[in-house]
Protein backbone atom coordinates (compact mmCIF):
# COMPACT_ATOMS: atom_id res chain seq x y z
CA UNK A 1 0.00 0.00 0.00
CA UNK A 2 1.14 3.53 -0.84
CA UNK A 3 0.40 6.45 1.44
CA UNK A 4 0.68 10.11 0.50
CA UNK A 5 0.33 12.82 3.13
CA UNK A 6 -0.77 16.28 2.03
CA UNK A 7 -1.31 19.45 3.99
CA UNK A 8 -4.46 21.44 3.26
CA UNK A 9 -4.68 24.73 5.14
CA UNK A 10 -2.92 23.24 8.15
CA UNK A 11 -4.95 20.00 8.08
CA UNK A 12 -3.00 16.83 7.40
CA UNK A 13 -4.69 14.65 4.74
CA UNK A 14 -3.50 11.05 4.39
CA UNK A 15 -4.25 9.19 1.15
CA UNK A 16 -3.77 5.43 1.50
CA UNK A 17 -3.90 3.65 -1.86
CA UNK A 18 -4.24 -0.10 -2.33
CA UNK A 19 -4.77 -2.82 0.24
CA UNK A 20 -4.72 -2.18 3.98
CA UNK A 21 -4.09 -5.73 5.15
CA UNK A 22 -2.09 -7.10 8.09
CA UNK A 23 1.22 -6.40 6.35
CA UNK A 24 0.35 -2.80 5.50
CA UNK A 25 -1.20 -1.95 8.87
CA UNK A 26 2.04 -1.39 10.85
CA UNK A 27 3.68 1.06 8.42
CA UNK A 28 0.37 2.93 7.92
CA UNK A 29 -0.07 3.30 11.66
CA UNK A 30 3.43 4.76 11.96
CA UNK A 31 2.70 7.26 9.20
CA UNK A 32 -0.52 8.43 10.84
CA UNK A 33 1.18 8.69 14.23
CA UNK A 34 3.96 10.79 12.69
CA UNK A 35 1.36 13.00 11.01
CA UNK A 36 -0.38 13.56 14.36
CA UNK A 37 2.94 14.22 16.12
CA UNK A 38 3.58 17.07 13.68
CA UNK A 39 0.62 18.83 15.34
CA UNK A 40 -1.63 19.62 12.38
CA UNK A 41 -5.00 21.34 12.97
CA UNK A 42 -6.66 18.02 12.24
CA UNK A 43 -6.13 14.72 10.43
CA UNK A 44 -8.31 13.49 7.56
CA UNK A 45 -7.86 10.09 5.91
CA UNK A 46 -9.15 10.27 2.32
CA UNK A 47 -9.84 6.63 1.40
CA UNK A 48 -10.63 7.21 -2.26
CA UNK A 49 -7.75 4.91 -3.25
CA UNK A 50 -8.35 2.29 -0.55
CA UNK A 51 -9.45 -1.00 -2.11
CA UNK A 52 -9.43 -3.33 0.87
CA UNK A 53 -9.39 -3.25 4.64
CA UNK A 54 -9.30 -6.10 7.19
CA UNK A 55 -9.66 -6.00 10.98
CA UNK A 56 -5.90 -5.36 11.20
CA UNK A 57 -6.46 -2.29 9.04
CA UNK A 58 -9.47 -1.16 11.07
CA UNK A 59 -7.28 -1.21 14.14
CA UNK A 60 -5.10 1.52 12.59
CA UNK A 61 -8.12 3.82 12.24
CA UNK A 62 -9.02 3.14 15.86
CA UNK A 63 -5.50 3.87 17.11
CA UNK A 64 -5.31 7.05 14.99
CA UNK A 65 -8.71 8.27 16.21
CA UNK A 66 -7.62 7.81 19.82
CA UNK A 67 -4.24 9.46 19.21
CA UNK A 68 -5.91 12.45 17.53
CA UNK A 69 -8.34 12.77 20.43
CA UNK A 70 -5.46 12.61 22.93
CA UNK A 71 -3.64 15.31 20.93
CA UNK A 72 -6.77 17.45 20.95
CA UNK A 73 -7.17 17.51 17.17
CA UNK A 74 -10.04 16.51 14.90
CA UNK A 75 -10.10 13.25 12.98
CA UNK A 76 -12.30 12.18 10.09
CA UNK A 77 -12.34 9.62 7.31
CA UNK A 78 -13.77 10.24 3.85
CA UNK A 79 -14.44 8.70 0.44
CA UNK A 80 -14.91 5.07 1.51
CA UNK A 81 -15.49 2.67 -1.36
CA UNK A 82 -18.59 0.46 -0.88
CA UNK A 83 -16.65 -2.67 0.12
CA UNK A 84 -14.54 -0.74 2.64
CA UNK A 85 -17.59 1.09 3.97
CA UNK A 86 -19.30 -2.26 4.55
CA UNK A 87 -16.43 -3.29 6.86
CA UNK A 88 -16.78 -0.03 8.83
CA UNK A 89 -20.56 -0.50 9.04
CA UNK A 90 -20.54 -4.19 10.03
CA UNK A 91 -18.12 -3.55 12.88
CA UNK A 92 -19.92 -0.46 14.19
CA UNK A 93 -16.81 1.66 13.49
CA UNK A 94 -19.02 4.07 11.61
CA UNK A 95 -20.51 4.98 15.01
CA UNK A 96 -17.24 5.92 16.72
CA UNK A 97 -15.30 7.47 13.83
CA UNK A 98 -16.48 10.48 11.83
CA UNK A 99 -17.07 9.26 8.28
CA UNK A 100 -17.82 11.73 5.51
CA UNK A 101 -18.88 11.07 1.95
CA UNK A 102 -16.16 13.26 0.50
CA UNK A 103 -13.00 15.05 1.51
CA UNK A 104 -14.55 18.52 1.43
CA UNK A 105 -17.14 17.62 4.05
CA UNK A 106 -14.48 15.89 6.16
CA UNK A 107 -12.34 19.03 6.08
CA UNK A 108 -15.37 21.11 7.01
CA UNK A 109 -16.26 18.80 9.91
CA UNK A 110 -12.75 18.76 11.45
CA UNK A 111 -12.14 22.50 11.15
CA UNK A 112 -15.49 23.81 12.34
CA UNK A 113 -15.26 25.70 15.65
CA UNK A 114 -16.18 23.51 18.60
Amino acid sequence: MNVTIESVDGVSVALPAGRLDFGAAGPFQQQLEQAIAAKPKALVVDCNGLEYVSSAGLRVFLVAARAAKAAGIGFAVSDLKPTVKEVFDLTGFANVITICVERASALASVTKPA
Partner: protein
Amino acid sequence: MSQATQELSADAGQLPAATAFLGEFWETADLPPALVFPFELALEEIFMNVVMHGSGGGQVPTVRLIIAADTDSITLTVADNGPAFDPLSLATPDIEADLEHRRIGGLGVHLVREMMDAVSYAREGGFNQLRMTKNLAPA
Protein backbone atom coordinates in the same frame (compact mmCIF):
# COMPACT_ATOMS: atom_id res chain seq x y z
CA MET B 1 -17.27 -27.66 -10.13
CA SER B 2 -13.78 -26.27 -9.88
CA GLN B 3 -11.46 -26.62 -6.94
CA ALA B 4 -7.94 -25.66 -5.92
CA THR B 5 -5.74 -26.40 -2.91
CA GLN B 6 -2.68 -24.72 -1.49
CA GLU B 7 -0.54 -25.45 1.54
CA LEU B 8 1.38 -22.75 3.39
CA SER B 9 3.12 -22.42 6.71
CA ALA B 10 1.25 -20.30 9.25
CA ASP B 11 3.56 -17.32 8.86
CA ALA B 12 2.45 -13.70 8.42
CA GLY B 13 4.84 -13.43 5.48
CA GLN B 14 2.73 -16.02 3.62
CA LEU B 15 -0.41 -13.84 3.61
CA PRO B 16 0.33 -12.33 0.16
CA ALA B 17 0.78 -15.86 -1.26
CA ALA B 18 -2.55 -16.92 0.25
CA THR B 19 -4.29 -13.89 -1.25
CA ALA B 20 -2.64 -14.50 -4.63
CA PHE B 21 -3.86 -18.12 -4.59
CA LEU B 22 -7.42 -16.87 -4.16
CA GLY B 23 -7.04 -14.28 -6.93
CA GLU B 24 -5.72 -16.88 -9.38
CA PHE B 25 -8.61 -19.21 -8.64
CA TRP B 26 -11.08 -16.36 -9.20
CA GLU B 27 -9.64 -15.74 -12.66
CA THR B 28 -9.37 -19.39 -13.63
CA ALA B 29 -12.89 -20.22 -12.48
CA ASP B 30 -14.26 -16.94 -13.90
CA LEU B 31 -16.07 -16.04 -10.65
CA PRO B 32 -17.91 -12.75 -10.00
CA PRO B 33 -15.28 -10.09 -9.11
CA ALA B 34 -17.61 -8.57 -6.50
CA LEU B 35 -17.40 -11.78 -4.47
CA VAL B 36 -13.62 -11.87 -4.15
CA PHE B 37 -13.64 -9.20 -1.41
CA PRO B 38 -15.52 -11.17 1.28
CA PHE B 39 -13.35 -14.22 0.59
CA GLU B 40 -10.09 -12.25 0.69
CA LEU B 41 -11.22 -10.77 3.99
CA ALA B 42 -12.27 -14.14 5.42
CA LEU B 43 -9.00 -15.69 4.31
CA GLU B 44 -6.90 -12.97 5.94
CA GLU B 45 -8.87 -13.00 9.18
CA ILE B 46 -8.78 -16.77 9.64
CA PHE B 47 -5.22 -17.22 8.34
CA MET B 48 -3.93 -14.50 10.66
CA ASN B 49 -5.80 -16.05 13.58
CA VAL B 50 -3.87 -19.25 12.97
CA VAL B 51 -0.60 -17.30 12.64
CA MET B 52 -1.19 -15.43 15.91
CA HIS B 53 -2.65 -18.20 18.03
CA GLY B 54 -1.81 -21.50 16.36
CA SER B 55 1.81 -21.88 17.43
CA GLY B 56 1.05 -22.56 21.09
CA GLY B 57 2.38 -26.09 20.78
CA GLY B 58 5.80 -24.71 19.85
CA GLN B 59 5.45 -25.69 16.20
CA VAL B 60 4.36 -23.48 13.29
CA PRO B 61 1.20 -25.11 11.91
CA THR B 62 0.64 -25.94 8.28
CA VAL B 63 -2.36 -24.20 6.72
CA ARG B 64 -4.26 -25.91 3.92
CA LEU B 65 -6.51 -23.72 1.80
CA ILE B 66 -9.25 -25.35 -0.24
CA ILE B 67 -11.44 -23.24 -2.48
CA ALA B 68 -14.31 -24.81 -4.39
CA ALA B 69 -16.98 -23.30 -6.61
CA ASP B 70 -20.01 -24.71 -8.35
CA THR B 71 -23.04 -23.05 -9.89
CA ASP B 72 -24.75 -22.54 -6.51
CA SER B 73 -22.01 -21.53 -4.11
CA ILE B 74 -18.37 -20.84 -3.35
CA THR B 75 -16.74 -22.48 -0.31
CA LEU B 76 -13.38 -21.66 1.22
CA THR B 77 -11.98 -24.07 3.79
CA VAL B 78 -9.05 -22.97 5.93
CA ALA B 79 -7.55 -25.99 7.71
CA ASP B 80 -4.59 -26.03 10.09
CA ASN B 81 -2.86 -28.65 12.17
CA GLY B 82 -2.32 -26.40 15.18
CA PRO B 83 -3.91 -27.08 18.58
CA ALA B 84 -7.67 -27.68 18.41
CA PHE B 85 -9.43 -24.34 18.45
CA ASP B 86 -12.88 -23.28 17.29
CA PRO B 87 -12.80 -19.57 16.37
CA LEU B 88 -16.61 -19.60 16.29
CA SER B 89 -16.55 -20.16 20.05
CA LEU B 90 -15.23 -16.61 20.52
CA ALA B 91 -17.64 -14.18 22.12
CA THR B 92 -19.26 -11.68 19.79
CA PRO B 93 -17.41 -8.38 20.20
CA ASP B 94 -19.26 -5.33 21.50
CA ILE B 95 -19.73 -3.32 18.32
CA GLU B 96 -21.62 -0.62 20.22
CA ALA B 97 -18.73 0.31 22.51
CA ASP B 98 -17.42 3.88 22.38
CA LEU B 99 -14.03 4.89 21.00
CA GLU B 100 -12.14 4.34 24.26
CA HIS B 101 -13.59 0.89 24.89
CA ARG B 102 -13.28 -0.56 21.41
CA ARG B 103 -11.39 -3.84 21.07
CA ILE B 104 -10.16 -5.39 17.85
CA GLY B 105 -10.10 -8.96 19.19
CA GLY B 106 -12.95 -10.99 17.74
CA LEU B 107 -13.83 -8.44 15.06
CA GLY B 108 -12.29 -10.53 12.30
CA VAL B 109 -14.42 -13.57 13.06
CA HIS B 110 -17.44 -11.27 13.46
CA LEU B 111 -16.84 -9.90 9.94
CA VAL B 112 -16.51 -13.42 8.54
CA ARG B 113 -19.84 -14.46 10.09
CA GLU B 114 -21.53 -11.34 8.75
CA MET B 115 -20.19 -11.63 5.22
CA MET B 116 -20.65 -15.37 4.68
CA ASP B 117 -23.92 -17.25 4.29
CA ALA B 118 -22.68 -20.27 6.24
CA VAL B 119 -19.68 -20.83 8.52
CA SER B 120 -18.90 -24.09 10.31
CA TYR B 121 -16.04 -25.57 12.30
CA ALA B 122 -14.87 -29.17 12.63
CA ARG B 123 -11.77 -30.87 13.99
CA GLU B 124 -10.93 -33.69 11.61
CA GLY B 125 -7.78 -35.74 11.14
CA GLY B 126 -5.77 -33.48 13.43
CA PHE B 127 -6.81 -30.36 11.52
CA ASN B 128 -9.02 -27.45 12.53
CA GLN B 129 -11.31 -26.93 9.57
CA LEU B 130 -13.27 -23.75 9.11
CA ARG B 131 -15.65 -23.89 6.15
CA MET B 132 -17.05 -20.63 4.81
CA THR B 133 -19.69 -20.56 2.11
CA LYS B 134 -21.36 -17.86 0.09
CA ASN B 135 -24.37 -18.71 -2.06
CA LEU B 136 -24.50 -17.48 -5.62
CA ALA B 137 -27.62 -15.77 -6.88
CA PRO B 138 -29.31 -17.81 -9.63
CA ALA B 139 -28.20 -16.58 -13.04
